[in-house]
């Protein structure tokens, strides 16, 4: 079987990305300079997480069905809730949830939920495959909110958009879901949008990051961030 690739695989390889395996997914582990990338992740770094699992559910019974599977859900739309294994449950409306697999450990939640979808429709919950349709980037670091301010109309600063906040809005004129789940004191934004526009989004973000000396970082840099606050 061919390993699923990121929609920006070519750009990642051209940038010197060292592709490796993390929990069954092929992702960029680093760009050859882990120490500098770990530093950038605290200042401004952009990681591609597109090969990691994610799945969505919608329907009048979606919340109840997910709760029965042990998923902790926020009460309100546009909020995010971290699961025990590091996965993130995002409420996109009153009846739609997006689950992002853990970036830290082998995914168990998305795989479990996807395996259980065959009877979900009886509970009026309908699965939405999100792996192929959405790119998934992580923008991290102290300058992340200032950088997003250049390409997004929503105030992403801590005072207006704290950890756990979600905005479904326009990002560089693309429809996108922005999920803020800080790594300790370091701001971290998960960005998801139409995978057909992934190359454009990646290039736009890198362009916007230039004035803050931002750079692409590998998954190893995100793991280093996570270890710092544990």
């Amino acid at each position, binding site marked *: 079987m061919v390993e699923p690739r990121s929609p920006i695989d070519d750009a990642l390889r051209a940038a010197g990305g060292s592709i490796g395996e993390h929990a069954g997914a092929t992702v960029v582990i680093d760009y050859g300079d882990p120490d500098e990338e770990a530093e950038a992740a605290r200042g401004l770094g952009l990681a591609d997480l597109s090969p990691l699992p994610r799945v969505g559910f919608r329907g009048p019974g979606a919340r109840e069905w997910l709760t029965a599977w042990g998923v902790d859900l926020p009460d309100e739309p*546009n909020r995010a809730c971290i699961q025990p294994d590091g996965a993130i449950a995002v409420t*996109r*409306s009153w009846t739609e949830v997006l689950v992002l697999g853990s970036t830290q450990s082998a995914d168990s939640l998305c795989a479990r939920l996807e395996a259980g979808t065959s009877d979900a429709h009886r509970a009026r919950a309908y699965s939405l495959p999100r792996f192929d349709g959405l790119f998934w980037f992580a923008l991290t670091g102290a300058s992340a909110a200032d950088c997003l301010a250049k390409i997004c*109309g929503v105030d992403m600063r801590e005072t207006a958009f704290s950890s756990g906040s979600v905005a*479904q*809005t*326009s990002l560089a004129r693309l429809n996108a879901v922005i999920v803020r789940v800080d790594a300790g004191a370091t701001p971290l934004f998960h960005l998801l949008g139409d995978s057909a526009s992934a190359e454009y989004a990646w290039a736009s973000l890198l362009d916007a990051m230039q004035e803050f000396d931002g750079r692409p970082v590998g998954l190893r840099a995100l793991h280093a961030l996570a270890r710092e606050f544990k």
Partner: protein
Amino acid sequence: MKVMPCPLNGPRPIQEFTCGGEVVAPPDPDHADAEAWADYLFLHDNAAGVVREWWYHVPTSFWFIADRDTVTDEIVRTFLPRELFGPDAQPDRP
């Protein structure tokens, strides 16, 4: 920048929205004649003052209703369609 208060997403730039036209009741499908359907589909009041319109938040594919003053372009109020059409019209919303 003009800001629209979306009932699902909160305040957002107006560029994220599309107007879906006036909220008007459809004619009775059993008795309406062609003229009534043409009026419903193609003719608009285009009133000066506060009008009631469908609006759509594109990033979330979310429809809602807004009261908007067409003279001042002020958005008076936005709300969920179930407020007009009852909970049966949107059984999955709180």
